[in-house]
């Protein structure tokens, strides 16, 4: 009948299992897929993320170079980050904090980036080096 008693006594002397949440927050793990961001400077507006997204939270206007995301429809799967050819998308390790109002993230980019990417792809000798250069800084924040 008193089989739970040792556990209860033990819980009185060991450290607390809970945190005082809003005041004390645990450090997120390094590989957590949190809030989605787009480094618009690097975006080539190819529309891959729009096609791959399972919840269809991303819209890409290729002509006007506008990248739009509904952060409340995002399911944090990270498929867009994996497939982004320019490595412009990345996820932070923190989750989005709750808000009282609905927002849509809309970012306006420059069309010249697309031309640059095309130029790089067109050059047969140099694209390898420049491609890696682009991939490295993009990979850091995503992991």
């Amino acid at each position: 009948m008193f089989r739970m008693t040792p556990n209860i006594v033990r819980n009185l002397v060991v450290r607390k299992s809970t945190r005082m949440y809003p005041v004390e927050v645990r450090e997120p793990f390094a590989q957590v897929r949190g809030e989605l961001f787009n480094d618009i400077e690097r975006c080539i507006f190819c529309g891959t993320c729009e096609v791959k997204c399972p919840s269809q939270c991303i819209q890409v206007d290729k002509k006007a170079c506008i990248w739009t995301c509904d952060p409340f429809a995002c399911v944090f799967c990270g498929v867009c980050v994996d497939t982004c050819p320019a490595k412009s998308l990345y996820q932070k390790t923190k989750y989005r904090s709750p808000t009282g109002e609905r927002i849509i993230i809309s970012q306006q980019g420059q069309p010249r980036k697309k031309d640059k990417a095309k130029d790089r792809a067109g050059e047969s000798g140099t694209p390898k080096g420049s491609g890696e250069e682009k991939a490295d800084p993009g990979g850091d924040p995503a992991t």
Partner: protein
Amino acid sequence: MRKTVIPFGPQHPVLPEPIHLKLTVEDERIIEAIPNLGYVHRGLERLADIRDFHQMIQVVERVCGICSVIHALCYCQGIEEIMGVEVPPRARYLRVMWSELHRIQSHLLWLGLFADSFGFESLFMQFWRVREKIMDISEATTGNRVIVSVNVIGGVRRNPDPEQIRWVLAQIDWVEAELQRLEDTMLEDYTVKKRTVGKGVLTRQQAYELGAVGPVLRGSGVAQDARQTGYAAYGELHFEPVVETDGDCYARNKVRFRETLASIDLIRRAIHRLPDGEVRTKIKGIKPPQGETVNRVEQPRGELLYYLKGSGQKTLDRVRIRTPTFANIPPLLVMLPGHFLSDVPVVTLSIDPCISCTER
């Protein structure tokens, strides 16, 4: 005595899921139970017409939050079978690791809720405290706590490094030590036994004939587990199902508790045999799935069955899911009659109902 019909659910303080039973009661005893399904139907199978077969992974993961890895695993295995994709050995072992982690967290959630169903609040808290460590392992290795989105067609998306694997082993040791401390209470305590022993008895014959699956079937003494088929890497891990023979709520409770410890053992074995190499086969250039297949895996609640049919298009023709709770409802209706109304929550929870799975 006059008969009374009492609706049990869909909203009930003790139920984690919106199961709806119409109970015909004579005095305080149940005479008949009639289930009413469809309360949380979302039409996820129909989404296969709209989403392409890669995006369906994220959809099937949301059929059930508690066993998302296993749903995605079953779906991916089916598609891989149709497309003829070979999964790298490391990915197969990692799939076992994540599946078993999900089984542990699901069983711990259930053990807590079960303790709560007969009013043992402090035991409920203890199980959920242990479960939190498993959620941390999921978050650190896959990137998310519950819907981990780690399976893809051709393998897995994450490759834990040796340091992370060592950390997982250390965390699992902690979980095992904590569980052993709770074992005495969950399996031997007077109050637990008083509420569970001899309640909701399902004989071996009934369990087999009514098509029970998972811990309900194994609690009645039938040693059947879909993991015996050896999918992913289970065939190489010398898996043996956990069986109890009494067929009552206590036996089902014991099966789940022992399975949790068995899963910890399976994770250790999978990690010790974890081969090096790739975790994902590239499927670029292979045509979309054309053909049909039936695939079954073992969920925490029992056997899960997927029927997939594709005709070479980006979208699949048909995705049919049969979830374990659907198979476990007929046995529940046999268990309930004859019991007091106050035993209904305990007996209902003993099949571990997952209604969002069942109604999809």
